[in-house]
C-alpha cells in the first residue's frame, strides 16, 4: 500500500478524455516522477489530488483517507502541499511574509482569530521562516516584495513555502521550468537535501530529463490521459513503448 493510491480515475472536459482509468500508487518516502508529452493530463491529475478538480469516477486515497470532495485547505492540512506550474505566491507581500503564512497555517490550522497577537513576537515562527529562507538561499531577499523577484526566485520561494510546512507528500508541477541551468542544479540539490533530512514523499512532474533522472526512484509515463508504463529510471530509459510515445520527441 502506497501513501497515495489512485484507482480508476477518469476526468473528461467536454469531449476530451483528459484522464482515462488512471491507476497509480506512490510509495512512502520515494520520489515518483510523472512524465509525458504536453497535454498528457499530468497537471489535471495533480488537480484531482489537491481538490481543485473532482474526478468523474475513481478514488484517490492519501494515507488511508479519501481526498475526494474535500476543500483544498483540508487536503493541505492532511499533509499534501503543491508547487504549481506557474508559481503561485503572495505577490504583494514580502518574501518573508510569504513563508510566514504557511508557518502559521501549520501551527494554527485552517483558521484562528489571532487578531491581537503581533507577528514580531512570534519567535518560533520567525525562526522557522528564517531557516527555510536560508535553506533556499533567499535570506538576503526577505524584505523584497515577492512580485519583484525573478522567475527562478519565485519558484524557489514557492518551494520554500511548501517545504516549511513539512508535508508528507509534496507535489511538484515542473519545479524547474523557466530556471537557468545553475538554478536547476541548485533545485535538484535542495530537493535531495530535503529528501535526506526528513521523511517526505514527492510526486514530481517534469519535462527536464536531467532533473527526472537525478531525482526519481520510480517513473510513470502518462500519454493521452493513461499511464503507459511504470518502472525504475534505468528500465524507463530503454523502454521501446516510452521512446515511441514520448522520448522520441525529447532529448534523453
Amino acid at each position: 500500500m502506497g501513501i497515495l493510491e489512485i484507482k480508476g480515475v477518469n476526468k473528461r472536459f467536454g469531449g476530451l478524455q483528459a484522464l482515462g482509468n488512471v491507476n497509480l500508487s506512490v510509495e512512502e518516502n520515494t520520489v515518483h516522477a510523472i512524465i509525458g508529452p504536453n497535454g498528457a493530463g499530468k497537471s489535471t491529475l495533480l488537480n484531482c489530488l489537491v481538490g481543485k478538480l473532482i474526478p468523474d469516477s475513481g478514488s484517490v486515497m492519501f494515507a488511508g483517507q479519501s481526498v475526494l470532495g474535500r476543500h483544498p485547505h483540508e487536503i493541505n492540512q492532511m499533509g499534501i502541499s503543491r508547487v504549481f506550474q506557474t508559481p503561485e505566491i503572495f505577490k504583494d507581500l514580502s518574501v518573508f511574509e510569504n513563508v510566514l503564512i504557511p508557518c502559521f497555517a501549520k501551527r494554527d490550522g485552517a483558521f484562528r482569530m489571532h487578531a491581537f497577537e503581533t507577528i514580531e513576537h512570534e519567535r518560533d515562527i520567525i525562526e522557522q521562516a528564517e531557516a527555510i529562507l536560508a535553506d533556499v538561499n533567499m535570506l538576503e531577499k526577505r524584505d523584497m516584495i515577492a512580485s519583484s523577484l525573478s522567475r527562478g526566485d519565485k519558484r524557489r520561494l514557492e518551494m520554500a513555502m511548501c517545504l516549511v510546512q513539512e508535508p508528507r507528500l509534496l507535489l511538484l508541477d515542473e519545479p524547474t521550468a523557466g530556471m537557468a541551468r545553475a538554478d536547476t542544479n541548485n533545485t535538484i540539490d535542495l530537493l535531495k537535501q530535503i529528501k535526506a533530512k526528513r521523511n517526505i514523499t514527492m510526486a514530481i512532474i517534469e519535462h527536464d530529463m536531467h532533473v527526472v533522472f537525478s531525482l526519481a526512484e520510480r517513473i510513470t509515463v502518462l500519454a493521452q490521459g493513461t499511464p503507459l508504463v511504470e518502472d525504475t529510471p534505468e528500465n524507463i530509459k530503454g523502454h521501446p513503448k516510452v521512446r515511441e510515445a514520448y522520448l522520441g520527441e525529447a532529448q534523453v
Partner: protein
Amino acid sequence: MLGLNRKDTILMLIVIALTLGAPVLLNPFPADSAMAQFNAGYPDLMQRFVIFGILAIGFNILFGLTGYLSFGHAAFLGVGSYAAVWMFKLLSMNVVPALVLSVVVAGLFSVLIGYVSLRRSGIYFSILTLAFAQMSYNMAYSVLTPITNGETGLQVYSNDPQYLLGNGPQVTHLFGLEMRAKAVVEMGGWTFDFSVGYYLAAIMMLAAFYLSLRIFRSPFGMMLRAVKSNQNRLNYTGINSRPYTLAAFVISGMYAGLAGGLLASMDPLAGAERMQWTASGEIVLMTILGGAGTLIGPVVGAVFIKYFENIFSKINEHVLHGWFGWLPDGVEDVVTWILARFVGEGWHLTLGLLFMLVVIFLPGGLVEGGQKLARLLRRSRPDGTTPSNTPAE
C-alpha cells in the same frame, strides 16, 4: 507601548495629539476675520470628522486588507443609529447602553449579510452587499416602519417609556455629562470650543484606530492581506479564507455600527437615508481618497470629504464677490461665475474632479501623495541626508 513597536507608537501618539488638539488646530483663524469661514473647529463638524473616521477605519479593515469591496456598509451605520435611538426610547438618554447595542446589533446584522455575500467575490460580492443595503433601506420605509418610524425618522418622544430615566437629563449624556456641553475658551481674537460630544467620539476613534493598528500588525491581518493578494495560494496553503473574510466583514460592520450609534448620540435621531446607497458610496470614496490599505488614509479621507461638504458648500457667489472685489468689474464677474460652479452647491464637482485626479495620479490616495511630497522635500534638503524608505503607513 501597548504591544506596538517604536514606529507604530510614534504614529499612535501623533494621531492622539492631533485628535485631542483638534479644537485648537482646526480653528487657525480669529473668529471675526474673513477667513473664519474656513475654520473647522466647531463641535458639530469635528464630531463628523471622527465618527466618519471610525466608519472609514472599519471599512478599510475589510476593503483595504482583503480587497472585498462592500457597497452596503451604510446599512450597518443605519442599523447602529436605530439601535441607539431605541435604547434612548426604552432606557434613558445615557449613551453607554446605546453604543453597546448599536455595535452588537450591527455585528449580528453583518454576520447575516456577510455570510451570504461572501459566497461570491469580486463584483458579485459588491452587488450582493449593495442589494442587501438597498433592501434594508426600502424595508425601513415600508414593512419595518413600526421599528424605524418610516419617513419621519426614529426619535425620542416625551411619552416613551424610558424605564431608567428617573430624573436624569433629557438630552444625551454620559453618566450625567451632557453631550452638548462645552467649554468655550477665548484667547485674543480666537475662540475654541471643547465639547463633551467631540471628546467622547474622539476617544472612540482613538480606540478604533489602535485596534486597527493591532489588527494590521497581527497574523490575522497578514492573512487578510494574503486573501487580497492570492486567495488560491492561501487555500492551497491550508488556510480556509472564508472565516477570515467573514471576521473582517463583521469587524468592519461593528465599526460602522459604532459610528451609527455615535451619530445618534450626538443627535438622537435616526433616518433611513443613512442607509441609502449614496451613503455607502461615500464610505468607499473616503477610503480610496485617503488611501485604502493604509493605516491613516481612511481618516484623512473622511476628514477631507466632510470638510468639503461643510465648508466648501457654504461658499456662495456673494462670498466670492467679496474676495474678488478688487478685480476690474467685467473680469470679476467672469472669475466669480466660473469659481461659483465649483463651490457652494457645486462642491460635488470639485470633489469628483479631485477624486479622479487622486485615482489616476495617486493610486495610494492622499497618504501616498503626502509620502511622495515628504520624500521630495527630504531629497532636496541641502545637507544631503539619505532619504529613508518608510513603508506605507
